[in-house]
């Protein structure tokens, strides 16, 4: 029977399947960070267990660390204690750690691919819902809770039920000014934040094939925002070219053998999916969210929807509440809404290609008066590369703040945050109430839209930038 890539990877990893029980699924790579792991290590200790496969486990500190210069101590005592705990746990259990001062530190979903640890066909987990990012390489990658982190540390396995499959086919060509972020925001706006619950997305189609690895990561990253725990793209030459020569990628004869194996990871002709959707890339516009979940997004030329037009009372209630929180008026256009802060970074859009796009817009320009623009590289490696290319100078000269790597204002655990009532346009993935600081209000958008907005201080259409004619 023809199989999807999702089923192929699943079947290769089932260790045991008892009738009526979930499968025991083997995990190839376990990523660990400071926020969702301490209680799991405590659990191991109290059971007297070891980490079964330190060679399949890797840790970094990203969520709670400051993005101020690394020669300063961590001022927040709780964050400092959490980072210290991670260091102690990794030392005790033999887990390799790219700690907060390491040259390989970074957001867990940025460094996995960078180091070549994220490989096609692998099962990858992390106590973090954006683990789906790694699906860009044709891996089955998903977020887990801390109890599951403990299980994987102890056994390198998880109990899982076979997910349903959901084909997201994106055909056509993106117009200038429209990017990968807009594809995923458009998908979520269409299916809603619960649309993919119980499913794994496979992103396919000519528009997906044309994307770089970094763009594919942007899309897979936000699978969870559409309700799917995982989302993936079948590997191809773009994948292999990205991986080749990375520190932890196989090399020599091992590389050739691995590529031969990876080439079999495509969905078979005639394979069927539990759900399917088709998106026409030709007609997509830059997308911006106006509400308090990532499904509340609209094409940038659109107007803020009116709860009165909602037929479903629950949806009308949710929209009313969201507009109240955002202090936005139905019928207003989203272009021209003022912002206080522009945040460029996160595991969605904090990689080098994202920074290049933003720098290209800001080059030789000045950010709007009174607007705080924060650029936070996704990893120490991204930061070094950006500095080699002079992007840091472009950002600083334009009046933006150039920071150290971390999650920063995506989750606002580390002091980088909005004040109550402030608006941000953000390249991150969540616009939940208070996500970027208590009382803060978030518009999600692409790096291009965020950079265009930085110049004007109000939400701006990147297609009006020079060189992006419609």
């Amino acid at each position: 029977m023809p199989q999807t890539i999702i089923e192929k990877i699943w079947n290769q990893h089932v260790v045991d399947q008892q009738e009526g029980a979930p499968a025991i699924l083997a995990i190839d790579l376990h990523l660990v960070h400071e926020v969702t792991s301490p209680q799991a290590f405590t659990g191991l200790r109290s059971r007297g267990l070891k980490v079964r496969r330190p060679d399949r486990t890797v840790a970094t500190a990203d969520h709670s660390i400051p993005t101020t210069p690394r020669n300063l101590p961590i001022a927040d005592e709780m964050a400092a204690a959490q980072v210290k705990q991670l260091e102690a746990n990794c030392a005790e259990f033999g887990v390799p750690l790219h700690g907060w001062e390491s040259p390989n530190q970074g957001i867990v979903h940025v460094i996995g691919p960078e180091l070549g640890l994220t490989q096609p066909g692998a099962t990858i987990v992390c106590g973090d819902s954006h683990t789906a990012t790694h699906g860009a390489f044709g891996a089955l990658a998903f977020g887990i809770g801390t109890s599951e982190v403990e299980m994987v540390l102890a056994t390198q396995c998880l109990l899982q039920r076979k997910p349903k499959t959901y084909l997201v086919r994106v055909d056509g060509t993106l117009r200038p000014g429209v990017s990968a972020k807009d594809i995923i925001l458009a998908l979520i706006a269409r299916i809603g934040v619960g649309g993919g619950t119980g499913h794994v997305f496979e992103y396919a189609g000519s528009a997906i094939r044309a994307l770089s690895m970094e763009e594919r990561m942007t899309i897979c990253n936000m699978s969870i925002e559409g309700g799917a725990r995982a989302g993936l793209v079948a590997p191809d030459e773009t994948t292999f070219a990205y991986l080749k020569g990375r520190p932890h990628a196989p090399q020599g004869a091992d590389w050739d053998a691995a590529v031969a194996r990876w080439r079999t990871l495509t969905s078979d002709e005639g394979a069927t999916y539990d759900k399917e959707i088709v998106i026409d890339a030709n007609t997509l516009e830059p997308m911006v969210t106006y509400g308090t979940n990532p499904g509340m997004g609209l094409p940038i030329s659109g107007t803020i929807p009116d709860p009165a037009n909602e037929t479903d009372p629950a949806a009308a209630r949710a929209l009313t509440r969201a507009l109240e929180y955002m202090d936005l008026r139905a019928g207003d256009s989203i272009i021209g809404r003022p912002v206080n802060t522009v945040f460029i970074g996160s595991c969605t859009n904090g990689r080098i290609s994202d920074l290049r796009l933003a720098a290209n817009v800001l080059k030789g320009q000045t950010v709007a008066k009174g607007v705080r623009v924060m650029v936070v590289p996704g990893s120490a490696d991204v930061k070094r590369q950006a500095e080699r290319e002079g992007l840091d100078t472009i950002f600083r000269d334009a009046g933006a703040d150039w920071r150290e790597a971390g999650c920063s204002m995506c989750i606002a655990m580390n002091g980088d945050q909005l004040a109550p009532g402030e608006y941000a346009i953000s390249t991150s993935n969540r616009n939940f109430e208070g996500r970027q600081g208590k009382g803060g209000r978030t518009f999600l958008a692409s790096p291009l839209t965020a950079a265009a907005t930085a110049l004007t201080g109000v939400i701006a259409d990147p297609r009006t930038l020079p060189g992006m004619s419609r």
Partner: protein
Amino acid sequence: MAAPKVGTFTTGLVPLPAENVDTDQIVPARYLKVIDKAGLADALFHDWRFEADGTKKNPPFVIDEPRYAGHGILVAGDNFGTGSSREHAPWALGAFGIKAILATSFADIFKSNALKNGILPIVLPAPLHATLMQIAKEDLAATVTINLAAATMTTPDGATHAFPIDLFSQKMLLDGLDELDYIRTQGEKILAHETAHPGTINTLQPNTPR
């Protein structure tokens, strides 16, 4: 660590008629800097419950209303627990005294996390859910009995409704069994699978030094 054990319980309802309640609302990120599971009851729905100065909102958020004190079943809107995978969400709900959540659907990771902590995420058909939401709002003395062994729920009108729960989770919770212990019983199969699938990932050793 003892796994949670769940049997039969009877308790009151708390209405939370909001859709897509995300785990950032259930426990805001700044409370994730803890390294243990203790003390999360106050973090639960923190920004919906407390003013900036830390005092309770007036009027209070629904879970703080005295008339709902001690009620252990949350009747929530669709897609409860969306967003972040933080297990702090069920830890905080449990610490506050929530034993079950009734909704028309749940986000996948939240559902899995809740079950591991002995909190039942119960999916109800829309009409029954609407009825119970109404009862939660209007009839403060109403109680619901949840019988996990029978996978049934007895509503205030005396009617008994079956609810879906997979047999595996049901058995684990009834017997207080631990998933990690269960996986460890299959050590030989795990070893055999590892031997048959050596793979190419090694976090300890780079293959191509930079």
